[in-house]
């Protein structure tokens, strides 16, 4: 039988999500446990991503596991022309779990089907990055005490944003209401609107970052509007300052509102928001570690109770 892997957020159902969140809550209370003692985890980063790699490696280190791997394909044998299959087969001789980031889309699904040990997708091109979604869900759960019936306003690049698409998918089990705030060129693809329609998930679309979209929200999920995504630079110049959150814009927001961002942030959240207790993006990033501890133990069949 193939070992269980996490490739796509769709690999998790409602029960799986709740199980991981409960386990992540325990790791947040006590992240230093010897649950991975004697285990070796491989971090194969064919594409560099310092933030994600450090989060995973800290998660393993705090559980007393050992790490092998590489942080850049320049230092792996793929530069010698080795196939992904051969790299996976070789590494699985040594490791009990593989954490992989790769620039090619679908690489994680393929690797998970070859690998005799569980595999976690830490990002495959612009396709999937499920542990980001799980840490987003954990942060929402932690700050709202529930995942059910929340209004989530998502702002910025809704067309290409991988984190956004997976978050919509991940929240779909919990009866959300969405506000999609994006410039014309980067609006939410029809595919995701159809997905929401299909699941009876109500949503509204805004091209203006309006007070209404902020004040009705329980979660304000900001993302970066990247210049290189625009075909028309005039259009970029027009919108680049519209999708920026300033502190005063939060003055009439709900008490329970939290502002999240998958990071790195550039200018879309002004520095003056950082001091507001509703800003939660740095804690969100830290939650990544606890969530990854939960996912790693879950895939390896380790009891965390």
């Amino acid at each position, binding site marked *: 039988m193939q070992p269980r892997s996490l490739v*796509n957020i769709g690999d998790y159902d409602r029960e799986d999500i709740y199980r991981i969140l409960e386990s992540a809550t325990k790791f947040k209370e006590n992240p230093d446990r010897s649950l991975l003692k004697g285990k070796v985890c491989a971090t194969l980063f064919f594409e560099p991503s310092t933030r994600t790699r450090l989060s995973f490696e800290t998660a393993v280190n705090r559980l007393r596991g050992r790490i092998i791997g590489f942080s850049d394909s320049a230092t792996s044998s793929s530069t010698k022309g080795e*196939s*992904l*299959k051969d790299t996976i087969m070789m590494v699985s001789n040594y490791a009990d779990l593989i954490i992989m980031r*790769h*620039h*090619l*889309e*679908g*690489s994680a*699904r*393929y690797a998970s089907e070859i690998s005799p040990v569980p595999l976690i997708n830490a990002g*495959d*091109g*612009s*396709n*999937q990055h499920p542990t980001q979604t799980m840490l987003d869900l954990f942060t929402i759960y932690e700050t709202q005490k529930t995942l059910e019936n929340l209004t989530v306003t998502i702002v910025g690049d809704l067309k290409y944003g991988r984190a956004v698409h997976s978050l919509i998918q991940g929240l779909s089990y919990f009866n959300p209401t969405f506000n999609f705030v994006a410039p014309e060129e980067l609006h939410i693809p029809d*595919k995701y609107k159809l997905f929401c329609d299909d699941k009876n998930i109500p949503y509204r679309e805004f091209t203006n970052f309006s007070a209404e979209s902020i004040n009705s929200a329980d979660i304000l999920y900001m993302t970066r509007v990247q210049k290189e995504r625009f075909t028309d630079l005039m259009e970029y110049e027009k919108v680049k300052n519209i999708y920026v959150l300033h502190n005063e814009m939060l003055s009439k927001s709900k008490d329970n509102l939290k502002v999240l961002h998958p990071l790195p942030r550039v200018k879309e959240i002004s520095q003056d928001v950082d001091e507001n207790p509703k800003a939660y993006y740095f804690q969100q990033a830290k939650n990544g570690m606890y969530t990854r501890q939960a996912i790693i133990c879950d895939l390896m069949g380790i009891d965390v109770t």
Partner: protein
Amino acid sequence: MGKALQVAALENGTAIDHIPTDAVFKVVTLLQLQRLGNRITIGNNLNSNKMGSKGLIKVSDKFFKEDEINRIALVAPNVNLNIIRNFEVVEKKKVVLPDEIIEIVKCNNPKCISNNEPMKTRFHVTDKEKVEIQCHYCEVKIKKEEIVLL
């Protein structure tokens, strides 16, 4: 006259009828007919009441397996298959698009692992009516008119 008869009448074998004219040679490739030693007749741009013009392929002494013949559903979803034994049509079949397509189609996403690694391509058929498929690996959806065969 004798030659004309040879073409027209099939004693035993399969006649694949109502092939869109632009798909005839793709069907030949998909069924690997170039590798067969059997007697094969390929007709194209023939008159058709239904289609205006059509293609037709007759293969003597060959009866395709389901999974072989279903491969052609991708390029010619409405063809008729006539199974002929002893000069009689003993069975008429429609091709059916399978749920999964392995090793026939190329993924349109240049950044897909299947275009960069020696491996079989694999697609799920997400819409049999419209012939829409999705890459098992990179999850890209491909419409009928965008399908590229390997």
